[in-house]
């Protein structure tokens, strides 16, 4: 509850900052301070200190898993804000409102990590997505941003409608909105499960797959990620996507296990995983723009996160937390660097190592982490995902497919490293924006990724204590 209340209050405070605070530079720091208080509030709640003891049980349940994920998500937002202070100031005219919307997204995140009721799932998804529709269009004078915003809004509104239909059908099948299914009716069923519940679950999962950009519902992602202003893309492709996966995982953990007698979910998820990995990786190879390549790479990474939803065991749970951290940090760092470079194509990165050695070195670490090279966080993230499938004891071929696609992904990640280190050129960087603070932040993130890769238990031990 702490994070939920604090993020809503900070959202309102930032809203009024647009009227009350005259010093434009202060706003970013106010937002960063707000995030810090939310982070502290959430950690305090993990250890039992709450602002209010309001009874929210049948709707929300704050368990260790959700609270720990909140910490990861808020920490990622904090790093994201510190890295993109200048970009956010430049995007559009309304900087305080930009932060307001980010705080409201955090509200949605805290609901999604603790929902116990399908109505709360719907509410959380809406609070998460509606600010994003606006953020995508926040660069008001840019036609591409406008197009992306409209596209995202129309597609998102449709998927919301589909999601509601699914929830309604599940209600018809089980007679309850609770995440934990009630008693099953005995007539009109298939293997003991009401056919309405099965249909509803499939439809609801389509909508969740849309939010997490899992194939075959990924079509919006590249266009929207490409058109949106770079800081927004960074935010959407990392924190929001990972949260959508967590909500998906929470849903499947209960409902899929409950309906296994009637539906072969493993097969459905296996097909989705292979399709997502295939489309994400193969299309990313052909991209000329780094931003678009990262958009497809985020689809490919979504394929890896689907492994957690496939196996639904304890390893998958730990792995999802770990993956969230590893993937978010690396991608946020890459996008932050990209916004300092004027030309987003691979040629634009040529010779970056000569001109900005710090940026190139940290970016190389981020890319190594995304491709899953040992000693970086990305390796253990992928390891946990694949290990969870092994632990289920079936579908071993899925692991082989995953490893193959991870190998393919090395091609396009290393292409960027090659451009930075082994090609000559004069990249068009915005030098006055590359402050020592920015460089130091990038180094901190890179060190954090290496530390996580060397000692994966650092993060997960904390989850248990």
């Amino acid at each position, binding site marked *: 509850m702490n994070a939920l209340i604090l993020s809503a209050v900070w959202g309102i405070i930032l809203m009024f900052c647009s009227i009350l605070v005259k010093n434009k530079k202060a706003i970013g720091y106010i937002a960063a301070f707000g995030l810090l208080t939310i982070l502290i509030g959430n950690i305090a709640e993990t250890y039992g200190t709450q602002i209010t003891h309001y009874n929210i049980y049948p709707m929300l349940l704050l368990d260790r898993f959700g609270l720990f994920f909140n910490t990861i998500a808020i920490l990622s937002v904090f790093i994201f804000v510190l890295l993109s202070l200048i970009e956010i100031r430049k995007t559009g005219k309304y900087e305080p409102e930009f932060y307001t919307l980010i705080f409201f997204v955090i509200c949605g995140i805290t609901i999604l990590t603790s929902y116990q009721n399908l109505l709360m799932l719907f509410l959380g998804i809406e609070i998460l997505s509606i600010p994003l529709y606006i953020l995508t269009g926040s660069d008001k004078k840019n036609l591409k941003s406008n197009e992306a915003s409209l596209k995202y809004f129309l597609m998102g509104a449709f998927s919301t409608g589909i999601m509601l239909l699914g929830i309604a059908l599940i209600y018809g099948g089980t007679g309850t909105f609770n995440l934990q299914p009630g008693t099953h009716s005995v*007539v*009109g069923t298939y293997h003991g499960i009401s056919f309405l519940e099965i249909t509803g679950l499939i439809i609801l999962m389509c909508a969740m797959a849309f939010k997490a950009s899992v194939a075959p519902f990924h079509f919006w992602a590249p266009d929207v990620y490409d058109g949106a202003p770079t800081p927004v893309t960074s935010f959407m492709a990392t924190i929001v996507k990972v949260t959508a996966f967590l909500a998906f995982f929470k849903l499947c953990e209960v409902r899929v296990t409950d309906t296994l007698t009637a539906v072969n979910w493993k097969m459905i998820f296996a097909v989705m995983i292979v399709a997502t990995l295939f489309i994400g990786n193969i299309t990313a190879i052909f991209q000329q723009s780094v931003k678009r390549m990262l958009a497809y790479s985020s689809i490919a990474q979504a394929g890896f996160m689907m492994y957690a939803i496939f196996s639904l065991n304890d390893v998958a749970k730990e792995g999802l937390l770990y993956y969230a951290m590893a993937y978010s940090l690396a991608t946020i760092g890459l996008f932050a660097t990209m916004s300092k470079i004027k030309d987003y194509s691979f040629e634009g990165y040529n010779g970056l190592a000569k001109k900005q050695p710090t940026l190139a070195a940290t970016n190389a670490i981020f890319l190594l982490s995304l491709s899953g090279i040992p000693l970086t966080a990305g390796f253990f993230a992928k390891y946990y995902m694949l290990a969870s499938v092994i632990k289920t004891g079936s579908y071993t071929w899925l692991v082989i497919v995953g490893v193959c696609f991870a190998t393919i992904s090395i091609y396009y990640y290393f292409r960027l490293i090659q451009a930075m280190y082994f090609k000559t050129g004069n990249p068009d960087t915005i030098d006055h924006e590359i402050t020592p603070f920015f460089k130091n932040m990038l180094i901190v993130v890179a060190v954090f990724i290496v530390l996580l890769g060397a000692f994966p238990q650092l993060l997960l031990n904390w989850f248990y204590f």
Partner: protein
Amino acid sequence: MPILQLLSDIPVTGSTTDYAPIALQLFFAIGFIATMLIASGLIGPKRKTADKLENFASGIPSHGDARQPIAIKYFLVAILFVLFDVEVIFFYPYAVNFKGLGWTGFVEVILFTSFFIIGFIYIIKRGALNWEE
């Protein structure tokens, strides 16, 4: 009344047959509309005039193109009106359950209203309703 008899005879079992009345209604709705449209086309008198082909615009002859840009101010005022109008609807269920919800409900409604007023202050201060600018 055989049809009504049929509908009332189906016992509520929680199974698919419960949805038979809905299917029946759908069937009737489509059938009725189709029959009416076809029948009026076949039986009705056919007098074709130029006036009948005009778009119906409340009786006034239509003029100009509908696709012209309109000042954003109109949309802003309209959407804010809809927003605040819809929020007022939340007071109706509260009024109905006023006694049952007691002081807890009162505090919750005060909280809701204060958020509501904060939003209102924000749009006023931000100049969203400033028509002259």
